[in-house]
């Protein structure tokens, strides 16, 4: 590659479009009574309806409608008084009916927006992301293609199908085209998905776990030569399953397209797959010969026509906005803007809140998560949350406060927990990291130090307090660093008549 990111931005302007699929956390599926629990044995949460058996019919899950309306309201959308489901027809083994029941040209929510704030060179800046539509659909089953080089159906030796996911309610949130984000495009994309995720979580309508696929993002990216006023051909990147990946995928795709254009090539309208390992996208199926889905209104379902009073009841029940909540947290903790932004950008606010809720001091919790734990996470290219739980961090902080750990020991404990050696207490036990707070044990070490350096002891007795450093060092060394240095100092000075 010849162009890097800043060169890309010098020459081209990006336009984004984001489609987010959210699995709702309803107890039952979109069109039948089957359970939706994640991780059940394959094909145990199925019935004639979600298996698409001949003669079966769908019946709409009211709770899914409610969740969709809540999402629409939280995103400032209009709620359609009348919307319909359609059939999207195509053949694929993980689609039991060989059509997907999905809203199409008559979605339940339209025309909303979501404001996101990102840190720019000129300070915090608000971007208004316009929402085109929020619509309901059913998820497909899951296929696992075994054998073959690509893991895709072509060339596979055989395929395994799990229909537990078939019929799980999905809501798709589609933005309008997002121009004008310039070099911040990757950050804006990430901030949008992050803000959306926080809203969905606050509504309680989804588990919003990107790693489990309950929130999935497709990123549409196109470039146009700077100042040209034209719109480039877009690619659609799928398989983006973490906030960090959203940012990386947009950045990577911008660089790829810029280099392609630079070499005189042309961007093809296609689906691309994000690859976590490389941060690059690889070509999927081309959309140039667009598949004809033969959409038509689903004749097995009556239109969705929510009563106006119901919508107003739901509007009144909306929870506090995550952005308002953040403001409140910031004020109550007294956190400066920059640090608050750092926490949000690192996607650590919820984690810190959770740690504080478990009794930890906010400043300490923040410093552990953003400091030591983030450092280790960065080294191994993973998220801090995947390394250690808020409960363990809160426990470590509590142990320091109780004087059972020093900061230095605590770092070793955290390292042990991350390495999988067990809970903080187990790590302390296994590694023998307890603070030596037993006075008699310390006194023995102090006396031994005095005996080995009688001259130094004499100087201290004579009032040369700074000389104590050498003896304290010896005691710390003798106790393997497990003594509390302040305590050693106190005992030593007292013993030598200076306390």
């Amino acid at each position, binding site marked *: 590659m010849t162009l890097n990111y800043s060169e890309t931005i010098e020459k081209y302007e990006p336009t984004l479009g984001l489609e987010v699929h959210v699995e709702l956390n309803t107890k039952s599926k979109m069109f039948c009574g089957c359970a939706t629990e994640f991780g059940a044995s394959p094909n145990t949460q199925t019935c*004639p309806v979600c*298996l*698409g*058996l*001949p*003669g*079966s*019919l*769908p*019946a*709409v899950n009211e709770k899914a409608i409610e969740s969709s309306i809540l999402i629409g309201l939280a995103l400032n959308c209009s709620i359609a008084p009348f919307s319909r489901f359609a*059939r999207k*027809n195509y*053949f694929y*083994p993980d689609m*039991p*009916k*060989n*059509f997907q029941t999905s809203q199409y040209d008559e979605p339940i929510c339209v025309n909303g927006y979501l404001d996101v704030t990102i840190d720019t060179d000129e300070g915090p800046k608000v971007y208004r992301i316009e929402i085109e539509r929020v619509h309901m659909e059913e998820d497909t089953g899951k296929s696992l293609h075994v054998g073959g080089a690509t893991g895709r*159906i*072509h060339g596979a030796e055989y*395929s395994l*199908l799990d229909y537990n996911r078939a019929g799980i309610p999905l809501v798709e949130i589609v933005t309008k085209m997002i121009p004008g984000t310039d070099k911040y495009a990757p950050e804006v994309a990430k901030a949008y998905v992050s803000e959306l995720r926080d809203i969905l979580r606050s509504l309680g309508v989804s588990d919003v776990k990107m790693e489990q696929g309950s929130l999935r993002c497709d990123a549409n990216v196109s470039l146009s030569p700077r100042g040209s006023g034209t719109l480039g051909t877009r690619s659609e990147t799928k398989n983006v399953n973490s906030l960090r990946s959203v940012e990386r995928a947009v950045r990577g795709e911008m660089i790829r397209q810029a280099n392609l254009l630079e070499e005189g090539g042309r961007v093809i309208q296609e689906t691309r797959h994000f690859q976590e390992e490389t941060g690059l996208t690889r070509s999927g199926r081309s959309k140039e010969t667009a598949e*004809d889905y*033969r*959409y*038509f209104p689903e*004749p*097995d*379902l*009556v239109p969705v026509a929510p009563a106006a009073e119901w919508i107003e009841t739901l509007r009144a029940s909306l929870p506090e906005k995550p952005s308002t909540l953040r403001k409140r947290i910031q004020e109550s903790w007294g956190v400066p803007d920059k640090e608050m932004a750092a926490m949000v950008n690192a996607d650590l606010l919820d984690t810190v809140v959770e740690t504080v809720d478990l009794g930890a001091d906010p400043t300490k919790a923040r410093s552990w998560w953003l400091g030591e734990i983030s450092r280790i996470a960065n080294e191994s290219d993973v998220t801090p949350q995947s390394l250690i739980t808020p409960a363990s961090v809160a426990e470590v902080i509590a142990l320091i406060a109780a004087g059972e750990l020093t900061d230095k020991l605590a770092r070793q404990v955290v390292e042990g927990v991350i390495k999988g050696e067990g809970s903080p207490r187990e790590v302390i036990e296994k590694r023998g990291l307890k603070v030596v707070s037993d006075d008699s044990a310390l006194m023995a070490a102090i006396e031994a130090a005095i005996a080995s350096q009688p001259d130094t002891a004499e100087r201290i007795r004579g009032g040369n307090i700074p000389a104590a450093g050498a003896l304290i060092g010896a005691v710390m060394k003798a106790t393997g660093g497990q003594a509390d240095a302040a305590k050693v100092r106190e005992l030593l000075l007292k013993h030598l008549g200076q306390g």
Partner: protein
Amino acid sequence: MSSIFKSASAIAESLSKGESSAVEVAQEHLDRIAAVDGDVHAFLYIDTEGALAQAADIDKRRAAGERLPALAGVPLALKDVMTQQGIPTTCGSKMLEGWRPPYDSTVVTKLKANGVVILGKTNMDEFAMGSSTENSAYGPTHNPWDLTRIPGGSGGGSAASLAAFEAPLAIGTDTGGSIRQPAAVTGTVGVKPTYGAVSRYGLVAFSSSLDQAGPCARNVLDTALLHEAIAGYDPKDSTSINAPVGKMVEAAKKLDVKGMKIGIVKELSGDGYQAGVKTRFNEAIEALVSAGAEIVEVSAPNFEYALAAYYLIAPSECSSNLARFDSMRYGIRVGDNGERGAEEVMRMTRELGFGKEVKRRIILGTYALSSGYYDAYYGSAQKVRTLIKQDFDAAFAKADVLVSPTCPTTAFKIGEKADDPLAMYLNDIATIPVNMAGIGGMSLPCGLAEEDGLPVGFQIMSPAMKDELMYQVGGTLEAALLSQWGKPLLSSVPALGAK
């Protein structure tokens, strides 16, 4: 006297009086089937064991003093398009050979709750597409009036089983006339209730917005009894009507049409209608006038587009409904040799599993729904549907019910129209508008055509959710004709199974 020549209500009466047992009645019908079905071929599956067990259960409950529903212990023939748990359901297609559904359709659930004894599954045009039962993958059904002639379709098996005295009751389904046209050509009674009156859950869909299950019998009262047993709101079918079932039996027993306005639809008579059909139809009108009805002529100018619109809507929906038959989960699988991919196996299975007429309609529908053609075909057809509804609304403003011959001709010869799909489609010219508007329609016999001695059907159409009206008019007409003839039409059916 054997129960086979009795009506359902007469059988019910003798059962409730203890004059016969349900097991005897079931056995007599099973014996009759064994004797004549080799000639008629009304049945695709005979559930001897299940029927006798069900009958024995009814006898036991009656002996124990339980109050049983009106039709408890009365045998019935079920069209093979309805699922019955554990009983083969083929829809007359090779595609579903060997499939035993794991669930009961709502109609079957209701039949079982009413103690109706299900004898077996009846033959039909493949996936209910046809007007002669010649499109069954398992060979045609023969008309008991003349074994060289068709029994109508798609529900030829159900109608023939009634005319051959193999069952006193049958379930049919009607998408464009599949209950009424077979009733007309076999001299039996068939009712297509208002769309949504009977649940479609478990009815293997041909065209979801047109399909409607309904009762078939040898007289109007029996259809009314069966109607009340199977109708009612079903939360599993979103399109089912959430309202109490009307009093059909009471209406069938009224035998009074004084002051009722009966509308003759101008467009459903005249050219193309066989002379003998017209004669008998006019005689029936006279009988109604004698009974005190007032005759008005109504016009439905848009009916001329009904057939064309029907052959866009029904195939469109069928192309999507039948997509699920891909060999992946149930039914036959062709060509899976461990080498071929899923797509090729799907293609080979659909090539072999579907018959000519089904393929013709899938291709038609796929084309009609294609992007670029949708508006011109499916979109326009839906508009025609609205116009037909408006025609009916206008007509029902002038008349309580509308009438016409059910079919232009009497039963034609097997093979006569098999290679001329258009001529075949014209059979349903008078029945299709009823489905397009979602209203109720009944066919009852009004005599034998002079020229060929075959039954002629009289169609009564009633406004949506006013199915009682067609039972009232049908019951009155039936009584009037019976007093003219001195004996039921079906007593003239040639003797069968004289081996």
